[in-house]
Structures are given as C-alpha cells and as structure tokens.
C-alpha cells in the first residue's frame, strides 16, 4: 500500500464512530436519563454513545498523527452492482413476485464482474429463480407471491 501522510484507515474509522455517536446523542436527546438506581430509557444509549465518542476521537487523533497507510482503491463496479441487485429485490419482490424479482436480481448481480456472458447469465438466472420458487415458496412455505398480482 502507498504511504500516506495520515493513517486513512484509523482516520475513517474514527470519523465513522464520531458520526454514529453524535447521531445517537441527537436521536436520544429527549429520552429520560434517570440515575443509576432508577435508569430511564436514555441512560444506556447515552453512556454507550459517549464512550464510543471517546474511541472515535482517539482513532481520529491517531489517524492524523501517524503516517502509515492509505486504503486500497475502491472499485465502483462490484460495489454498485451488488447493492443495486439487493435494492432491486427489495423493490420488486412483493409487487412483481419472487420469480421475476429473482431473475432481475441475479442478472444485475452478475454485472459485478466482467467475466459474465449474457446468455449464460440469463439462463442461470431463470434456473435459479425456478429453484428459489420451488425451495422457498413450495417447500419452506415462505408467504411471498410468485407472480405479479
């Protein structure tokens, strides 16, 4: 890995934790905290969030201080393809039914690599969709429509 002036791994993790902790503190600002003998719903979230904030600041500081490593370059293709295929499944599963949703999900996921061949992918997607319908709906009784309603 390339040498950076900052430790990007630590820095990113630290900032991530600080963001989560800050978000929690904002989201729980209206909850009663109470005291140790009679804790309100806000007690634990606040304690955990504050500790997490401490960790976050520590990593952020360490990341800025040390000069060590960056992170490997992000490849957009697999990331987007996998996330999109899951998203498409969520959008189509209940409306268009499992059969169509499965075919679309598998084809979209295949775009994550350049190795795929279209004919093979489509044939495989149809096969998998059939298997999924048989296994999950017919055999395991998952209550999900197979075809568009």
């Amino acid at each position, binding site marked *: 890995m390339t040498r950076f002036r900052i430790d990007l791994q630590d820095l990113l*993790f630290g900032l991530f934790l600080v963001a989560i902790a800050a978000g929690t503190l904002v989201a729980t600002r209206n909850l009663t905290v109470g005291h140790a003998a009679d804790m309100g719903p806000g007690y634990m979230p606040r304690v955990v969030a504050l500790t997490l904030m401490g960790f976050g600041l520590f990593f952020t500081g360490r990341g800025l201080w040390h000069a060590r490593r960056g992170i490997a370059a992000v490849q957009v293709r697999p990331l987007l393809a*996998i996330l999109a295929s899951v998203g498409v499944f969520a959008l189509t*599963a209940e409306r268009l039914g*499992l059969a169509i949703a*499965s075919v679309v999900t598998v084809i979209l*996921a295949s775009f*994550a690599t350049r190795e795929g061949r279209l004919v093979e992918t489509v044939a495989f*997607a149809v096969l998998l969709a059939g298997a999924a319908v048989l296994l999950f709906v017919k055999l395991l009784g998952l209550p999900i429509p197979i075809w568009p309603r």
Partner: protein
Amino acid sequence: MDLFSNLLMGLSTALELNNLLFCLIGVVIGTAIGVLPGIGPIPTVALLLPFTFGLPPPSAMIMLAGIFYGAQYGGSTTAILVNVPGETSSVVTCIDGHEMAKQGRAGTALAIAAIASFFAGTMATIVIAALSVPLSILALKFTAVEYFSLLVLGLIAAVVLAHGSVAKSLAMVLLGLLLGLVGIDVSSGVARMTFGIAALSDGLDFVPIAMGLFGLGEIIANLERAAERRVVGQSIRSLIPSRADLRAAFPAIVRGTALGSVLGVLPGGGAALPPFSSYALEKKVARDPSRFGKGAIEGVAGPEAANNAGAQTSFIPLLTLGIPANALMALMIGALMMQGIQPGPQIMTEQPKLVWGVIASMWVGNLMLLVINLPLIGLWVSMLKIPYRLLFPAIVLFCCIGTYGIANSLFNVWLMMGCALIGYFFIKIGVEPAPLLLGLVLGPQLEENFRRAMLIADGDFTVFLSRPISAVILGVVAILLLAMLSPEIVRTRKEALAE
C-alpha cells in the same frame, strides 16, 4: 451416574428420526459451504435461521450446529486437494496437506484429516458432557450482578483473544451494543432511536446485519481481487492410511485434541486459534522439524484434530452459561431467542433435552461426516469447479430471500443492503466485524442485567466488586485488559495470531 443418564437422554433425542435427518442436512450443507471458498458458516447459518422457526428447538439447534462443524470438515478437503482453504480454520492444513497431495498421498492426507477430526469430535463431545454439569451448578448461583460481570468477561475475552486490534474491536463491541439498544425500551415502553420507523420498534434483526456484514460485504471485497482459482485434477489412489502413517499421526491427534478442547472453550477461540497453535506445537515437539512444510503427516493430523475439538468445545460457554465464544455462537444464541428460549445459566436445567440432544448429536454428526466425506470425496471436489461468477449471484439472491423470510419484511432487505455497504467499508479500513455481532446479540441482556443489578443494589456500583464471584470475574477482565498494555504480551499475541 448422572453424566451417563444425561448422555443417554441426549442420544435418544439425537437419534429420533427427524433429528437424524436435520443433523444430516446440517452436516451436508456445512461440508458444501466448507468446500466452497467465498461463503462461510456465518452467512449460511444466518440464511437458514428463518427456516428453523417451524422446527422444534432441538432439531433447529442440531441442524445449525451441524453446519458449523461440517464446515470444518469441508474446509480441510479443499485445503488438501487444491491448496485453497475453504475456511480460515483450514489455512494451516494447506501447508503440509497439499504438499502430501503433491507427492501423491492425497488419499492418506484426507483419511488422516477425517480420522483426526472424528477422534477429536468424539473426545470433545465427552469433554462438553463432563464440563457442563459442574459449570451449570456454578451458574445457578448467579444473580443479575454476576451475570452482568460474566457477560462483560465474555465480550472482553472474545476481543482480546481474537484477531485484530484490541482497541478497534472494543469500539466494535460498543457499536454492536448501541445497535442492540434500538427499539422499544422494555421497562419504560419508550421507543429509542427508531426514527419513527415502525419496523424498528422491535429492535434490529441481527440476521440482515450478519448477512450484510459477513456475506455481502465479503462478496464485494472478493470481486475486487482478481479472481483466479485453479482446479487441480487429483486422482485419489488409496484412502486407507498405512500403519506407519497411523502410528506417526496418532500422538499428534491426541495432542491436537487436548489443545483444541482447551482453546475452544475460551471466548474468541472458536475456529482459528486452535489449528495454528497445534501446528506450532507439533513443529516444536517433532524430532525433525525440517520435515514440516514438506508433507509431514503430523502437520495435518494435529491441526485438524485441534480444529474440530475447538469448534465443538466452543459450544460449552453457550450451552452452560449462555455466553457466545465467537460470532457464530452469537448467531446460535439468536436462534435460541427466536425459539423463545432465554439463553443463560438456567438453560441446562430448563431445557435438558435440548442441551444434551445437541451435545449427543455432535457425535452422531461426526460419524455421518466420516461416512459422507471419505467415499463421496469426488463429489465435493467437483463442486469446486463451479465458477465464482455463477456462485456469487446465487448467494446474493439467497441472502435477499432469506432476509425477507425472517419477518416477511422488505425493511430487513434494505437494512441488509445498508449493512453490506458498511461491511465493505469495514473490510476496506481493516476492521473485524465479528465483535459487533457479539455486542449486538448480547446488548439487550447486558442492559437488562445491568439495570436489574443496579435496582438490587440501589444504584451502588461497588456491588460488582463486593460480591465474590462477580469480583473474581471482573478481576480476570482487568488482568486481560492490563495484559494488553504490556508491549511484550502484545508482541507475542501478534505472532500467535499472525497467519
């Protein structure tokens, strides 16, 4: 004898026809995912969880346990034949196992691996049975105070003994705890951090989180590496090891079993630590250490035995105390809770059929593995020929359907998508996601016991130190954490855990 009557009861549960069937399904699936690199037992167990709802609790646990130790078997097959560890736990087996295969002794290596695993599995079953009774008696003395301390010890030890930076893992545990707090607060009925989303009021389901972090995040990261998998054609001539082989391997098997059993019980031990330690031990006691790396049979026998023994004894803290030793055991706890069984020290007395049934099923399952692995080896090897470009879309699809299946909720699918992104982010910045899962599953229990303890003690924090059992447990926690500050121990730990 109490032990024997318990084991007999367990055996009678495990030998019920439908339980035998679920055990078989579990070990077959386990072997399959063990053989296939790129999908591990964690997403698989998460995937199958929703479909264990309808089963009686013993059947569900027997099947899920089968997946776990089945995967250890399968992982070693590919390690020996194609030098690809199916699981992290079989990385060591690659070294001498594949070397043996190259010398035309693949059959011997496979047979020794299977025999070692079976022997270790049998011994570990006995260890579990023997240890669970005294542990559960001790556990009955526990109140909320002791249980809280024990949960803390479980979490801290899992962090200290597992891979990766301790500070980062601690932060991940806290992150998991925080996620576990989402939902309606049990004692006040107030919604916490639900952002007005109705699906969140029951809390976050851990299945989509586990699948996103471990399954999908991993796939995205795998696809970035240039995927190159050679499949080596290996003819297996003779599966029966010679007498000399057996004689050389047996002491290593015994040592590996002992080492694995001890390390498996420790939180965080799980699957990765025992084989590495065993390999190091074998190399140290060998008369001629230079043989290692060139096809030494002890280098296969020891780690394989340690691996399986460890995989099984990691069930001890789960079954007796309700504390998971690693992320996979955390999933098992989740499975129990979904079945309406509260994990904890009372589980042994309240659910003896379940606990002893699962223990006895491990032995039965190991016997099945011996049968399905050796004669059917060709079948498993041919599974390796499935190209990854077909494999991963199928995994993505099954993850989607499985996640949907837990609560028939599309929200969970979206949640999994978010976690996939976060899982990928964690891999990029080199953070282990396993502690997060532990925190998430144990979070609600930790909070409940903490609040109950505080209620008992009227808000006095010293109660954790004034009760003897709790004080001893917290003392161990303090020692573990202080040890991490010593540079010498940190260095040894790095070496011991380095792959």
